[in-house]
């Protein structure tokens, strides 16, 4: 089932529930894309990104992509798409001072900003707001003014997330901004690869190829940026995915172990308890209670 709502300002809300779908030649507005159940695979140029609960993907205006949904059960995806004009105007309101905005209230020459097309953790205020918006959308609330309140807040919160990312990128201590930007992009590719393939065994050699960096160089830069090794980061991704599967599904723990890329149950239980102070069984029990 697909539902699309186009607002009068040309912003769009889109939801799809299916177990199988393939869209070959899509082009995006600036959009925030999330999955509340199952997963969705995007192909952007040669990069493949898997979106599943716990993360959202950003696509810029004009980006071409393929996407497909394949899952055992139903997958549920939701995206909010901002029109080029709206995003450019919103951005202008944030970066220009009031005097400029008053002198030139309508500047059609403004281009929308471009963000890193990568996976971001879906959490905190942005998550709460988007889930409320999805809830209204699912209930067929048609009040555009109300929907726009959520869209404005969500966009503002995304700008804050993006700003924080840019601040974090300064941990890569390079004099030339273009070098820093390129390396940040490559490390984002590594992060996306780990998130998208966290159910598989991933070696540092593979990551090194994704980043087009030598293994030692990648290891050093990754630690600078994320304050942990790629292996430790992957472990966090896997444990958080396990947490979300324990919350949202009834899969037995043995199956979840495989789904998040652990080789054996006992090491999974030990690491889960070490990180969250509860065994997976107790965590699930507590959530149900």
């Amino acid at each position, binding site marked *: 089932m697909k539902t699309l709502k186009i607002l009068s300002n040309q912003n769009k809300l889109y939801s799809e529930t299916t177990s199988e779908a393939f869209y070959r030649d899509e082009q995006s507005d600036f959009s925030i894309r999330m999955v509340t159940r199952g997963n969705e695979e995007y192909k952007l140029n040669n990069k493949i990104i898997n979106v599943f609960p716990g993360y959202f993907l950003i696509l810029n205006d004009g980006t071409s992509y393929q996407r497909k949904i394949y899952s055992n059960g139903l997958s549920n995806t939701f995206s909010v798409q901002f029109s080029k004009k709206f995003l450019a105007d919103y951005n202008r309101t944030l970066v220009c001072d009031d005097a400029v905005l008053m002198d030139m209230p309508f500047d059609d020459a403004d281009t929308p900003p471009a963000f890193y097309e990568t996976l971001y*953790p879906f*959490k905190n*205020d942005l998550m709460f707001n988007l889930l409320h918006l999805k809830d209204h959308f699912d209930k067929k609330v048609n*009040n555009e*003014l*109300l929907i726009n*309140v959520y869209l404005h*807040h969500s966009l503002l919160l995304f700008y804050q997330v993006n700003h924080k990312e840019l601040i974090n990128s300064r941990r890569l201590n390079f004099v030339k901004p273009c070098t820093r930007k390129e390396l940040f992009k490559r490390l984002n590719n590594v992060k996306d690869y780990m998130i998208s393939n966290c159910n598989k065994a991933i070696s540092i050699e593979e990551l090194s190829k994704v980043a087009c960096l030598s293994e030692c160089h990648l290891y050093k830069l990754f630690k600078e940026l994320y304050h942990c090794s790629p292996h430790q980061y992957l472990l966090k*991704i896997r444990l958080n995915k396990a947490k979300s599967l324990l919350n949202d599904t009834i899969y037995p723990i043995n199956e979840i172990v495989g789904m998040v890329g652990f080789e054996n149950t006992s090491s999974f239980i030990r690491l889960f308890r070490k990180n969250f102070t509860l065994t997976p069984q107790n965590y699930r029990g507590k959530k149900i209670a």
Partner: protein
Amino acid sequence: MVPHQTSVKEYQQLILKEPLKSLEFLVQTMGFETMPADHEQQAFIYDKLGNYFKLLLIPGANCQEPVLIHTNDCLSNYFQLKTLGIHFINGPQYTPQGLMLEFKDNWGNYYKILEERFYEDDY
């Protein structure tokens, strides 16, 4: 929306400048419903989700302590109450406790609406 309280069995004391008018405000504007009470200072109210509250409305002059109302969707409340003409002290504020709204009613009583949110650390 749910007035904050520690226990359903106990009365929650609300010190309000104009208790009866404030009760009217809670019912007519904020959408609570009432049940008959034995005493005029008592109020039994419940919200649309069926949450039930025993309030003791105490007259007091210009109480500075806010009446804290819990909600599960602050932005939606903000929008609805704005359309009803409520004047907010601030727009929705993101606080460490969650999303919060502040406003005063026509009698100067101070209300806070809080959508409690539990935040995750970065990873």
